[in-house]
């Protein structure tokens, strides 16, 4: 019987190392003679540098060098604009070390390179800078007003981009609507906050003539290419490895100043150089996300059918736009969600502020979109006296309406075109799991009668996943029987080694344990872009499947020649290729790999290669001495995952605390490769979503100082705050890729702020509050429930 590996809850290949302390994260790498870097970062949000005095620091014990902008050679160029966009009319990127101006607290100003991190930090303290303070703007609503301080004087404006997207005839829709509802909706600033901070180790390998870099990046090939271009090296002279990486969530995909400066130091000083970000640095040195302010309105007919939506929003870009306007573009395109919005006007301005730059954080504009859409629908339901589930039912895109075009161009430049889904089915499944009718008719009224402030929320979402440009993979059967798989995608915990091995094990019918996956190392694979946008399983998984299928064909062809039978007469099972009905007539995959390679000797122990009579070249033209294929997969456009989530919450109005009583998720990421891994992804996303709904807000004051830059003050939910999550799978395969899969990495984070807001609003119905801003917190809930005292 063929072995089924694909789709099974296989235990992860990654785990034995990680569980026994044998993982290798970047900071675990200590090379002989290694130097250590510490940065001086700007203490001010906006200032000009009058002078920097590093002389005392240079004289400190153990200090090898102290660099400012003047000393960084090729790194003096501005950092790259990674993703341009025509509407990003005023892009601005930083210098790796501030040249003459700083634009946010935490911007790198000088770097000390010393014999130990302790000595480097000592020397940072000895650097003195004479600053000329400049006016600061943090509030993005103020930043767009005339006369506001300018983050970048030379641009003449704080508006980096102005985008308008129009579908249908929104004006007409609003003019004929039975009802129009308006809301101002805010989702606050937050950040991915992986438990491992960023780190880089670099060394110039004299023997090989290769710059070797270990980097916590989500995109080692991008970093490799950037370093090669910057230092005038061939790409093969730079090797970037993302080894074990302790979480990414988006913020580790970038080309950060440290990612060019540490390698430059290694090149220049000819010694290994390491920098590990500390947590306080991470708060101000690694990108943030989330703040958007939406003025949204929805037009519906008398029955609650959506006629149109108009949304104008401000997006906080922070001080620079290295990652373009990906986040607000995603918000704009995904705002309609799983609903038919025939007429849609969306418009945003991406606005500079003297804060840490913004780039994608798990969800990447989608939690914002879902928050706006779902809050608007709740408003419609409440105003029209409809059940909140019913208003969604009435507006869903139906299963027969795919492919469905939203009418806008998505983040990847392709149409925003949903490929498949079953949104009504997904909601019904959720309501069933929740026992929704009983909940609403019996349980909640009973609890409320006891004086408890309980509420239910539901929210639906879609997610454009698996975008291009492409990824690739090499699959090779080794003559020793293992299967080598190499890809360009690194992981930060998403189990690539496991799921990619499952794909190959299924295609070749070899044991899962025989498949060895190499990832995140440019020495193993040279082309691709990285792990982001919930794309690894879709894009890389598909490339792996295509390569494995090609190797399977090669193996079948070779076996057919050797056995003198037709390919159609062969079967692939139990790690072997053999004649149907005659299992003894066949080869293991390892034997086939030996047969493919006409060496003059045989491999010990498993001899199948025998001397052959001369018939010409031993490796005829067109043949390769291995069973190996490299394939690329480039999706036509995103594949659209979806889901629905329901929660029951209780508010303690005396303390303002929020308790989750139940949480259910139905998600649809197409064909599931490994249900354990998928559940883990959903759980983690929801937990971050709960953080964004009730705990995690980065507080800046008007001077641009981040007030809660520590784990004491920026609250990440613990095991006590995250409820039990009941996950149900719905599988609507994608027609776009060979596996039928859709991405799931960001899923849970997307609907959670919206669903928590809905449930809290329901719980506090007797107070008549409307939740229009997340995260909530105990203080806000207390004020809402004590209007007379606040």
């Amino acid at each position: 019987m063929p072995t089924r590996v694909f789709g099974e809850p296989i235990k992860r290949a990654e785990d034995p190392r990680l569980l026994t302390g044998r993982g290798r994260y970047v900071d675990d790498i200590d090379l002989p003679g290694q130097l250590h870097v510490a940065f001086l970062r700007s203490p001010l949000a906006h200032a000009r540098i009058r002078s920097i005095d590093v002389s005392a620091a240079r004289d400190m014990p153990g200090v090898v060098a102290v660099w400012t902008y003047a000393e960084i050679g090729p790194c003096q160029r501005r950092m790259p604009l990674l993703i341009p966009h025509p509407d990003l009319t005023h892009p601005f990127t930083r210098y790796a070390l501030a040249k003459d101006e700083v634009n946010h607290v935490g911007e790198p100003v000088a770097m000390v390179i010393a014999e130990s991190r302790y000595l480097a930090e000592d020397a940072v303290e000895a650097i003195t800078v004479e600053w000329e303070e400049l006016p600061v703007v943090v509030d993005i609503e103020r930043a767009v007003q005339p006369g506001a301080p300018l983050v970048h004087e030379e641009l003449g404006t704080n508006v980096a981009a102005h985008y308008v997207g129009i579908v249908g005839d929104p004006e007409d829709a609003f003019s004929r609507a039975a009802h129009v509802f308006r809301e101002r909706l805010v989702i606050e600033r937050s950040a991915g906050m992986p438990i491992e901070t960023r780190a880089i180790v670099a060394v110039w390998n004299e023997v090989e003539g290769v710059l070797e870099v270990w980097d916590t990046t989500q995109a080692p090939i991008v970093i490799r290419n950037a370093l090669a271009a910057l230092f005038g090296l061939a790409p093969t002279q730079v090797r970037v490895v993302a080894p074990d990486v302790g979480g990414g969530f988006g913020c580790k995909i970038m080309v950060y100043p440290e990612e060019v400066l540490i390698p430059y130091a290694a090149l220049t000083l000819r010694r290994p150089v390491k920098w590990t970000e500390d947590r306080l640095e991470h708060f101000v040195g690694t990108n943030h996300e989330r703040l958007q302010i939406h003025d949204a309105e929805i037009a519906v007919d008398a029955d609650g059918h959506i006629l149109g939506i108009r949304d104008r929003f401000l997006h906080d870009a922070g001080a620079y736009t290295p990652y373009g306007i990906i986040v607000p573009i995603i918000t704009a395109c995904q705002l309609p969600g799983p609903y038919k919005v025939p007429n849609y006007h969306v418009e945003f301005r991406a606005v500079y502020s003297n804060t840490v730059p913004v780039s994608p954080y798990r969800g990447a504009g989608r939690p914002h979109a879902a928050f706006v859409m779902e809050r608007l629908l709740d408003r419609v339901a409440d105003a029209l006296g409809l059940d909140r589930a019913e208003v969604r039912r009435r507006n869903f895109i139906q299963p027969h309406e795919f492919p469905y075009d939203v009418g806008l161009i998505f983040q990847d430049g392709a149409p925003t075109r949903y490929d498949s889904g079953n949104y009504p089915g997904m909601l019904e499944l959720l309501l069933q799991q929740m026992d929704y009718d009983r909940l609403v008719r019996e349980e909640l009224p009973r609890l409320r009668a006891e004086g408890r402030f309980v509420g239910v929320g539901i929210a639906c979402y879609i997610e454009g996943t698996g975008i291009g440009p492409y990824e690739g993979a090499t699959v090779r059967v080794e003559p020793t029987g293992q299967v080598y798989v190499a890809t360009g995608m690194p992981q930060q915990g998403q189990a690539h080694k496991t799921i990619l091995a499952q794909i190959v094990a299924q295609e070749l019918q070899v044991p899962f344990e025989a498949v060895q996956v190499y990832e995140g190392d440019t020495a193993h694979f040279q082309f691709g872009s990285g792990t982001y946008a919930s794309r690894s399983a879709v894009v890389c998984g598909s490339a792996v499947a295509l390569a494995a299928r090609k190797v399977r064909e090669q193996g079948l062809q070779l076996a057919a020649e050797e056995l003198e039978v037709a390919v159609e007469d062969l079967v692939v099972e139990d790690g072997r290729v053999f004649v149907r009905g005659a299992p003894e007539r066949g080869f293991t995959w390892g034997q086939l790999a030996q047969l493919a390679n006409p060496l003059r000797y045989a491999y010990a122990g498993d001899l199948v290669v025998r001397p052959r009579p001369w018939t010409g070249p031993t490796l005829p033209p067109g043949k390769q001495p291995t069973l190996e294929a490299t394939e690329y997969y480039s999706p036509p456009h995103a594949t659209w995952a979806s889901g629905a989530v329901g929660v029951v919450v209780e508010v303690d109005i005396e303390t303002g605390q929020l308790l989750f009583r139940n949480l259910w998720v139905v998600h649809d990421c197409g064909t599931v490769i490994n249900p354990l891994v998928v559940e883990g992804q959903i759980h983690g996303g929801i937990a971050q979503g709960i953080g964004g709904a009730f705990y995690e807000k980065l507080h800046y004051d008007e001077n641009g100082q981040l007030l809660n830059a520590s784990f004491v003050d920026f609250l990440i939910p613990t095991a006590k705050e995250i409820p039990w999550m009941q996950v149900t799978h719905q599988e609507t395969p994608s027609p776009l890729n060979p596996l039928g899969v859709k991405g799931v990495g960001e899923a849970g984070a997307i609907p959670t702020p919206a669903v928590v807001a809905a449930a809290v609003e329901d719980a506090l119905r007797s107070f008549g509050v409307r939740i229009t801003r997340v995260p909530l917190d105990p203080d806000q809930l207390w004020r809402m429930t004590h209007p007379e005292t606040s």
Partner: protein
Amino acid sequence: MTAVGTERRTIRVVVNGVAYERDVEVRLLLSDFLRHELGLTGTHVGCEHGVCGACTVLFDGEPVRSCLLIAVQADGHVIETVEGLAVDETELHPLQRAFWEKHGLQCGYCTPGMLMVLKAFLTEHPDPTEEEVREAISGNLCRCTGYQKIVEAALYAAQLMRQSRE
């Protein structure tokens, strides 16, 4: 200018059953000592201000934040780290087995801290409730898993450990 704490002292410490004697700067953090002096990099550092719990090790059997201790405080004490958890090369500790089976880890960064906290906890609470497990690990932040599968793993490990004692 010489920074505070740069004078050196000799310490003797037993880590995972091995006795070490090292000459260290008195300001050296215990976490840095374990990771970079002894090469025991299984203990991770996530915040260096005592909140995230990634650096948790056992100090005379009690869980401590190794980023909040300096190495000289460990002089004369016994430390256990994740490297010492498995029974031997071939046999994982029940906690490690349970985390593997229940998918109790993703990126693996918080995992050593979770394992060490739970080792101490399960010794004192062999049959905990879900709530007790959540309380026990509430000083350890995980950004990947949403904790559910960690909780499942801990409960399963407790069961395995009870069975092995029977």
